[in-house]
């Protein structure tokens, strides 16, 4: 086990993995029951990437997570009730009901957000954050997550070029879950290994097993040290998999882009099972301690959902508020009389 991962840290990482998984499953259930509107994009199977990387950062480093990155909220110890309330459209939610699923913002409170749901949209934004850290001479670094599909977007390449030319303190983390909706990564990515792309831009690209939280942590810890010391950007490609569909609607769409056998093969390496198995096997903790963590997590979920259910829907007229920080009469225009 990595030297930094003592018993407390290992158990905490299990708590984060388990709570994130149960959070995602609960969101799907609540969506089916009608509490949460709109399509949902859970990241079931991919939890290890976010957990591994974020445990290697400091609490004040700036993080841009992908639309499957709810683990960030758990790792940063933000109240997940705020996420549920937001998804219920309540004004107590972290975006006051305006953002909803895929748009969590906890930037001022916990230095991370999901907010921008454009494909790879956060990559240039967090490149800008890294530029700001450099201009202001801050110690913080910027970490941005995106998927294998998003890697094909033009501005990802522009950002990587920019980050190296200006020697910015940023880590680009690719959550390669093998598919962009239904398109296989081998089809859409011309490079043999996704990490080759960073090399083309002149900086280090590391490939790591995205189902092994210790390996991810190790790669991230090294990278964070290097980037914080001013050596420029680094790219980590975590090879992972999503057990669920791209979004919940996929269950009724009858898409045939992958086989059940393939899903089952990957499920054997589910970090939410393999990590605690390993901790018990290596006698880092006991199975009773694992059960206790699970029970506490379930309780946390129950309270979070209750908080969301008890919240209030916003007033309709609030739909016209918060567009501008410097307000002027007459804007935003209403569109009707």
């Amino acid at each position, binding site marked *: 086990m990595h030297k930094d991962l003592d018993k407390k840290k290992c158990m905490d990482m299990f708590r984060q993995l388990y709570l994130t998984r149960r959070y995602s499953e609960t969101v799907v259930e609540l969506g089916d029951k009608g509490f949460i509107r709109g399509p949902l994009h859970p990241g079931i199977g991919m939890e290890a990437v976010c957990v591994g990387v974020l445990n290697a950062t400091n609490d004040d480093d700036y993080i841009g997570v992908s639309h499957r990155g709810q683990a960030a909220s758990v790792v940063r110890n933000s109240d997940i009730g705020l996420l549920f309330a937001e998804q219920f459209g309540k004004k107590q939610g972290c*975006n006051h009901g305006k953002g909803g699923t895929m748009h969590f913002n906890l*930037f001022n409170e916990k230095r991370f957000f999901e907010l921008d749901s454009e494909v790879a949209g956060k990559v240039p*934004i967090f490149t800008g954050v890294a530029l700001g850290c450099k201009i202001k001479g801050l110690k913080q670094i910027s970490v941005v997550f995106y998927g294998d599909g998003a890697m094909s977007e033009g501005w990802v390449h522009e950002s990587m070029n*920019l980050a190296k030319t200006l020697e910015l303190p940023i880590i680009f983390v690719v959550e390669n879950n093998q598919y962009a909706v239904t398109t296989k990564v081998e089809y859409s990515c011309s490079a043999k290994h996704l990490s080759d792309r960073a090399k083309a831009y002149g900086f280090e690209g590391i490939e790591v097993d995205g189902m092994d939280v210790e390996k991810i942590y190790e790669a991230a810890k090294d990278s964070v040290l290097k980037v914080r010391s001013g050596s420029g950007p680094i790219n980590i490609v975590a090879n992972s998999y999503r057990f669920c569909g791209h979004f919940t609607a996929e269950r009724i769409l009858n898409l045939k882009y992958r086989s059940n056998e393939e899903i089952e093969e990957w499920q054997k390496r589910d970090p939410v099972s393999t990590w605690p198995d390993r901790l018990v096997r290596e006698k880092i903790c006991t199975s009773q301690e694992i059960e206790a963590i699970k029970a506490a997590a379930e309780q946390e979920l129950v309270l979070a959902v209750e908080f969301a259910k008890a919240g209030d829907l916003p007033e309709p007229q609030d739909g016209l508020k918060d567009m501008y920080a410097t307000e002027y009469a007459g804007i935003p225009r209403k569109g009707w009389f």
Partner: protein
Amino acid sequence: MKELSLVQAAREGLNEELKIDTNTCFLKIENDLNKKENRAAGNSDPDGQRIVNMPKSQATIISSATGLALIGMRPIIELSNTEDIYLSFSALLDQAAKLRYMSGGKLQFPITYLIIEDDERCDFNVLHSDSPYSFLLHGGMKVVIPSCAYDAKGLLVSAVRDNDPVAVFLPTRALGEVGEVPEEQYTIPLGKADIKRHGTDVTVVATGHLVAAALSAAEKLEKEGVSVEVFDVRSLLPLDREALEKSIAKTGRMVIIDDSPITCGFGSFVASTVAEEFFAHLRAPVKIVARADVPVPFNRLLEEYVIPSEEKLILAIKKII
């Protein structure tokens, strides 16, 4: 007071803001060396860190300004031509203009986009001749267009100090307009139009360099007994609806002259506002003199045919008097 050109005045306002507000930073996208003298680019480099030369990746640079704003900076970006707006459309209107709202008002993005509209003239690149501010209006972004040197400095300073994304367009055909400009830093508030000439028979609503065309037309028409009020919009969004109402209530007739394509352009925004909210004051149809819905052609004659002009304005006024 001193005499400066519009672009010099803007440059002065910008450089001073960079000095006095240490949260500002200036991003320059690699510029055409030929156009150097026209750039409002900050020449001062207050502490060697806050002016950054960026490689030509427009979309990413404009999006990175959103990131700079996130951690508390006040970025100003100069776009060297209007094509940059198209390339960074997503960064401008799907990110900067929306994210504050989507965060429930918790974040703010005090960004200034300084766009020096490239030459419409036929000796320059036709693909850089567009006038794209109406796109930004549709996306809810604040837009200002000064018509003279005095307004240029004041509006730019206000734009920088505003806590939302603001696009400042300096129209090519007004860049060289010389006028008196105070030495000290001052602001002209957004949302305030300026009546550049009072009149009673017809209101001409004009933007940017077309204000001068309107003033010239007004002088000519005065000799024919027509009293023209020239309404310099200055701030397209937020629009000074109070001043607009006051003017149309007085004259009852309106012509809008604007340099963006007519369909869904700024002209149609003003016309429809009047048609809905100030209809009772109207005594005649509202006329719009704008660009035709075509790209700007290379040949000079063709170009003159499709863009708004003083002659077309005078014709339009005469139709409704």
